[in-house]
């Protein structure tokens, strides 16, 4: 029992490490930029991290199982333009159009995710390269579907959803949090989650224990894709458009959030709580630097430095904790 509780303490310390970095950042910006801690700005930050948080939640599944998904940005564009098409089909009632659009986005996301998972695990090739291929396929597909044009004129009820708030908190963020919570339950409480961690650590041992890692891997990537589909819907509702070039580079932001959150890139270790903190760090940084009036180029440099520092600090703290 003592080891169990000390393990818990260590885990909390691990996540608190990133939490402390986040806290330090918040304190700094609150002091340096007076507008930072206003209610409106906090609501802005929540809105701004929502999409990355959703993508990063999905990405956590892919990374925990020992993979990675570079295609999320491009697949998100494909989801969005397909959903956009469905949303703007002629002669449909609003609710039906919305339902179709959402279903279409989720279906495309899950389809691409499942394809990523299946190809990489059935053929035993790194998901890095499979999803790099998928990135090109999805982006080209999105462009082909739309002929490079922006889709707009979505039903009003759909657009209204994008900026709705409850008690001053953006509804989209609440949804993202709920999804994260569900993801956390799945990862920590279900057999599927257990398999994800186990495969991420030692796939061969899982196979030799009489399981079929293939199925779990396909499912994990499908979950990643599902979250991409959700992110696409959130994007569209918030910006009221869908275009085939959206989401460029979103994968790197999502991966950064996951890794800053302490999840191991080699799989099997990490948690969604870390991902939440990682996404928050990235969002707070972007927001705070603009409020401070830091110029674009310097902002980019500082962002790079902070990404590295966050992980270095975490490693330093872990070193201290180990003694």
């Amino acid at each position, binding site marked *: *029992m*003592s*080891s*169990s509780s*000390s*393990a818990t303490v260590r885990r909390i310390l691990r996540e608190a490490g990133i939490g402390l970095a986040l806290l330090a950042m918040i304190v700094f910006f609150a002091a340096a930029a007076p507008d930072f801690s206003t209610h409106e700005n906090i609501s802005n930050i929540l809105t701004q991290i929502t999409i990355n948080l959703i993508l990063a939640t999905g990405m956590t599944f892919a990374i925990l199982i020992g993979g990675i998904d570079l295609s999320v940005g491009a697949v998100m564009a494909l989801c969005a333009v397909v959903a956009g098409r469905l949303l703007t089909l002629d002669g449909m009632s609003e609710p039906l159009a919305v339902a179709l659009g959402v279903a279409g986005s989720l279906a495309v996301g899950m389809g691409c995710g499942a394809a990523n998972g299946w190809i990489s695990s059935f053929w035993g090739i790194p998901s890095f390269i499979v999803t790099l291929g998928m990135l090109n396929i999805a982006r080209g597909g999105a462009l082909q579907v739309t002929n490079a044009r922006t889709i707009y004129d979505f039903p009003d009820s759909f657009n209204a959803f994008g900026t709705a708030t409850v008690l001053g908190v953006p509804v989209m963020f609440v949804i993202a949090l709920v999804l994260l919570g569900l993801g956390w339950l799945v990862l920590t*409480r*279900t*057999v*599927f989650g*257990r*398999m994800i*961690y*186990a495969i991420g*650590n*030692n796939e*061969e*041992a*899982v*196979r*030799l*224990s*009489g*399981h*079929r890692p293939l199925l779990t891997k396909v499912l994990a990537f499908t979950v990643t894709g599902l979250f991409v589909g959700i992110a696409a819907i959130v994007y569209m509702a918030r910006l009221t458009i869908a275009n085939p070039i959206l989401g460029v580079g979103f994968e790197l932001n999502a991966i950064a959030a996951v890794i800053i959150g302490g999840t191991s890139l080699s799989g*099997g*270790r990490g948690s969604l709580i870390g991902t939440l903190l990682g996404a928050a760090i990235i969002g707070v940084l972007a927001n705070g630097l603009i409020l401070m009036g830091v110029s674009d180029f310097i902002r980019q440099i500082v962002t790079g430095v902070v990404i590295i520092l966050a992980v270095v600090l975490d490693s330093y703290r872990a070193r201290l904790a180990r003694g």
Partner: protein
Amino acid sequence: MTQVNEPILRLSGVSKRFPGVLAVDGISLDVAPGEMLALAGENGAGKSSLIRLLAGIHRPDSGEMRLAGQIYAPQTPLDAIRAGVRVVHQEFNLLPALSVAENLLFEHLPRRRLGPIGGIVDRREMDRRAEALLARVGLDEVGPRTPVERLGIAQKQLVEIARALSGDLSSGGRVLVLDEPTATLTPREAGRLFEQIRLLKASGMTMLYVSHHLAEIFALCDRVAVLRNGALVDTMRTADTEPAALVGSMIGRTLATQAPIGGGTPGAPALSVRGLRPRGSPEDGALDFAVREGEIVGLAGLVGAGRTEAVRAIFGADPAIAGTIERDGKPVRIRSPRDAVDAGICLLTENRKEEGLVLPMAARVNTTLARLKLVSRFGWLRPAAERAETRRLAKDLATKITGPEQPVIELSGGNQQKIVLAKWLMGDKARVLMLDEPTRGIDVGAKAEIYALLGQLAQEGRAILVVSSELPELTHLCDRILVLSRGVLAGEVARPDFSEERILSLAYSRYTQAHWQTH
């Protein structure tokens, strides 16, 4: 300067604590130059931990080590190697994609200068030295340029040993530490290893030796230090003591001599193998045999005889070239371990680190890994049930864990092995239990308990197939022993005819030439 009687290695009050356990507890010990000292103790007694301190992997929390009179406080493995302390660790540390030669000479690759450029690997010299080293451990049939990942586990063990020998040739090693070097070796390889050890001893090398095979300790070592729960409880001269006393000192009680297990009345064939040709087996190497309910069958053979490949093929871990499997007389199609497990066939793999365990995860995760259905409902885990099962199995197998949440990577080698056993013993679905080197690294006391447990399982009507390189283990456990020689079923020995000579002669029967070959 070293005086004649001064100990080459002196430990005074050395301790090392890990979270939750005091792995090494104030050990004070002298080792005389040229002495061969055995470290004995149960699983988790602290032998490997002590060795890791010597090797510079961990640093002691307190106490002092002296090497030839000088303070010895290695901060890194490099410090240890520089000081002349060479270690063959319990777990392998090989470079799988690199060649055998590169692995052997990795510490100091032979170099050549090419004009002004230094640091060019002298490949011819490397092969030459590698061949010499391989010959010393009797692995001369392995080409120096073979990638290590293609070797079997025993061959890997021999490469590890040969690598430690490379050091003493080039950098003047003073202390050689061998942590369970024979755990996967058959008598032939072990014999060759002992020859080398004797040669080294004759040349004045000081050695520390860990083994759960007491016979080896008595045959090779001058003295034995007994560890229990991290503390040194006794040291004795092997000449002045005998195995039973040593065991008593290790486990704190005397172990009743055990009646052989086996001997029940076998039922119908639970597993029948027909015309099975595992991957890489010879043309004429089709295997035909059956294991009956309630029967314990042994599979003996020399290293590389194909035992592991046979059980892996039955289990569906590797695709077989040909053959059919029957369960309870009905043919079953096994294309993956999943199919095998569904058919009630289980395999405890020989390589726990890579194939058996999810090392960084908790004991409970590993224990329940093959039987998640028993601790979940509609896909939701029941943590309480998981913990309960884990505790129960840990108790049954006397596994030393601090709790179900302890990561398996923190366990001693033998305790890890017990977790793998627990994984397959959980529940009662394993009607046919195949075990590949099941007691690798397990201490004498626990071994006896595991034997008893296997006997009990057989009584319950399960069919058990045991692969082991330890002949006494097989003769103690089994009703029958099948002997493989170079991938071919060379014969079968029934209990009344059990004798090491008979089994060995069958095992050697296909190796008529001086050299046997790898596939």
